[in-house]
C-alpha cells in the first residue's frame, strides 16, 4: 500500500463512504416506496428493520454520512480558499473528531433502544 498521508486517506474514505451511503440510499428508497403497494408489503419489509445487525449497521451509515458531509465541507473549503489547502491536515482531523463524536452520540441514543427492543 502506498504510504500516503492524511489527504490520501481522506480521499479513500470519502469515496468509500459516498458509495456506501449511495448503496444504502438506493435500498432505502425502494423499501420506503413499497408503501405504494399497501401496508402489508411495506410492513413485511420493514419488519426486517428490527433485526439487530441491521440497526447496528445503520449507526455506521449515520457515521459515514457525517464523515462524508464534514469532509465534503473540507473539500469545499479547500476548493475555494488557499487557507483550506494550507490547513487540510488539521481540517481532516477536525472532520474525524466531529464524526467520532457524532457516532458516539448516535450510538448512545440508539443502542439502548436496540437493547430494549423498541
Amino acid at each position: 500500500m502506498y504510504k500516503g498521508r492524511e489527504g490520501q486517506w481522506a480521499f479513500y474514505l470519502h469515496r468509500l463512504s459516498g458509495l456506501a451511503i449511495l448503496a444504502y440510499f438506493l435500498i432505502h428508497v425502494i423499501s420506503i416506496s413499497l408503501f405504494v403497494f399497501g401496508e402489508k408489503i411495506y410492513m413485511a419489509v420493514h419488519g426486517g428493520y428490527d433485526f439487530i445487525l441491521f440497526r447496528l449497521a445503520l449507526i455506521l451509515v449515520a457515521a459515514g454520512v457525517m464523515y462524508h458531509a464534514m469532509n465534503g465541507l473540507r473539500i469545499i473549503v479547500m476548493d475555494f480558499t488557499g487557507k483550506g489547502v494550507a490547513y487540510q491536515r488539521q481540517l481532516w482531523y477536525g472532520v474525524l473528531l466531529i464524526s467520532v463524536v457524532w457516532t458516539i452520540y448516535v450510538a448512545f441514543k440508539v443502542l439502548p433502544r436496540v437493547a430494549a427492543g423498541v
Partner: protein
Amino acid sequence: MTIRARTMQDAKQQSHTNAELNWWIFMRISGLILIFLVLGHIYMTFVQVSESDATFDAVINKLSNPAWKFYDWLLLALTMLHGVNGARYSIDDYVRSRPNRAWVRNSFFTVVAMIFALGTVGLFSFNPN
C-alpha cells in the same frame, strides 16, 4: 468520453463543453444543501425516534404535510443526482475498458432512474385518504 487527449487538437476537440465544470459545481452546491437535508432526515427518523417507529401510519401522517413532501422529494432528487454523479466518477476511474464502461454506466443509470421514478411516484401518488 474519457478519451486521453494525445495532441493539442484532440484536447481542443474535447474541451468544448462545460459539463465537467458544471457537475463539479453541482457536487459542491448539492453537498451544502444535503448537509441539512440528510443530517436532518437522519436525526429525525433515526436518532430521535426508532426505526421501528416508522410505521405505515407514521409515514402517512408525515407525508400529509406538503412541506415534508417537498423536503423528502428534494432529498430524494439531490441525493440521487449527487450520488449518481459521484458513482460515475468512480466508474470512470475504475472501469477502464471502453465497452465495459459504457455497459456498466448505462445499466447503472437505468437502475437508478427506475428507483428514482419509483420513489417519486411513491411520494406523489400518495393520498392521505
